[in-house]
């Protein structure tokens, strides 16, 4: 635990000192996206990887965070910190609600319900004119950002902090009794229940936390783009990436989603500079299928196979 804490602080310090090394703002613009995917992938993994419930609607949780933040920013000019908290709360609530509705049923119903929620909410936002409806809403960033070179750098740092928080939470869950309970659910839900695991409560908890983290990741989105619009905020790409990254990285360990997000996220960011964005999401889809078929334990699994002597 101590080592992890030190590591986390080191990552944050590194993030804060990035502006000293990199002067091109685009680095932070792209880095933000990678960090955002770390949060999303880690959040997805808490429910998907540990408990085995596949969320297809990560985009919706992300968007709920983003739009909650936008609505509050527009109405009360809330500071970013509170926007993130509110976004997390709203998406957490959404996760809880969807969980209540479907977590008692077979896993596939939960998955379908998350798609359903994504479309219903997208329709709601399309018709919600206060936050721009279908046509979107331009957001003016605050003019001054204390301590940071620019607003993008500041947002980069915020997202880095969220990523550390998310990974920390995932790691805590994984190594504690909660994680063992979730894994028991994934392996055999009836046996878990008969071993004293309160399966519904645990799943609801995981769905809430997972949703909340996704919402937190979405909250700064409008400020990052200085614009928000439903189609790209609810984009299927978030859902696919949030699911592909942990599966490709390896679902069993907290570092898996991080590896997946850093790898896929950076590749996509680099590729968008040169190649069309279609090809780059196609790569994600193909990699997802290839890994699911050929390397079900992800990159981590491959790594373990190569170096079997190393434990865990």
């Amino acid at each position, binding site marked *: 635990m101590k080592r992890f804490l030190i590591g986390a602080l080191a990552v944050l310090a590194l993030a804060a000192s990035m502006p000293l090394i990199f002067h091109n703002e685009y680095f932070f613009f792209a880095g933000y996206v990678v960090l955002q995917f770390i949060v999303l992938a880690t959040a997805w993994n808490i429910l998907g990887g540990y408990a085995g419930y596949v969320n297809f609607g990560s985009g919706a949780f992300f968007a709920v965070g983003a739009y909650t933040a936008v609505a509050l920013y527009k109405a009360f000019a809330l500071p970013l910190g509170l926007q993130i908290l509110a976004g997390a709360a709203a998406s957490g609530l959404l996760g809880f609600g969807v969980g209540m509705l479907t977590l008692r049923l077979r896993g596939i119903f939960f998955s379908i319900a998350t798609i359903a929620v994504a479309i219903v909410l997208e329709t709601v936002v399309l018709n919600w004119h206060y936050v721009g409806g279908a046509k979107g809403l331009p957001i003016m960033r605050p003019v001054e950002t204390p301590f940071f070179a620019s607003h993008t750098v500041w947002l980069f740092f915020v997202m880095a902090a969220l990523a550390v928080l998310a990974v920390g939470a995932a790691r805590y869950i994984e190594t504690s009794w909660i994680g*063992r309970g979730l*894994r028991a659910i994934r*392996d*055999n839900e009836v046996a878990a*229940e008969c071993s004293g695991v309160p399966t519904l409560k645990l799943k609801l908890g995981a769905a809430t936390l997972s949703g909340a983290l996704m919402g937190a990741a979405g909250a700064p989105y409008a400020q990052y783009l200085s614009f928000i619009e439903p189609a790209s905020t609810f984009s299927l790409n978030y859902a696919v990436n949030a699911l592909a990254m942990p599966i490709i990285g390896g679902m069993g360990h907290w570092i898996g989603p991080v590896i997946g997000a850093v790898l896929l996220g950076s590749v996509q960011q680099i590729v968008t500079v040169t190649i069309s964005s279609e090809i780059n999401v196609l790569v994600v889809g193909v990699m997802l299928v290839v890994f699911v078929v050929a390397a079900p334990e992800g990159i981590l699994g491959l790594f373990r196979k190569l170096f079997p002597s190393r434990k865990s």
Partner: protein
Amino acid sequence: MTPLLQVKDVSKNFGGFMALDGVSVDIAQGERFGLIGPNGSGKTTLINCVSGVLANDSGSIRFDGREISGLPAYQRTRRGIARSFQIPRPFASMSVLENLLVPLEYAGTGKLDEAHEILKQMGLADKAATQSNRLSQVELRKLELARAMAARPRLLISDEAMAGLSSNEISEVLEILFKLNAAGITIVMIEHIMQAVMKFSQRVICLDAGRIICEGTPAAIVAHPEVQRAYLGA
């Protein structure tokens, strides 16, 4: 003294099919109890209702004098009802030791020593670090029992723990169950292998088509004409 488990008029209906039809039975503290009956007679349904995997449609189930029929399964486990499964359901991604840690942490004492103790008792001590999907059939059966024991039950329900085992392995498992009972744990055994049930049980009931057709000592049950008809005639 009130019986440990009181099942009264319990019925369960699956879309028009009466799996249990007004079953009543009391099981005393410390008893070795046998449950037999042909395939589809409702044995597993009954213990599913007792352990909370299924909810009974009517009737009452009391454990230690308190009504439990509305409770979810995990709470029943925490109160002291543990079970093994007919088809082993290990937590396949975990090691044998971790399998035990789940009930230990959620329903038992949470002490790691205890897990090792149980593994030793079950003869699985040297498999503690093995991943559970690499176990043999008999080891899986033992793991089922060991995991149930880790919840520190007062009532252990063993659902066909011996099916498919050799006679040596059967006596091994029987021995374990006798030892657990000697330590004060009430045991309900569901079994197809008659010798084992008859050797183990102090009292036996026989279910057929969701009803109890007879109840008594092993010797009396074997002699009962309805049992003979149910088993041999069907």
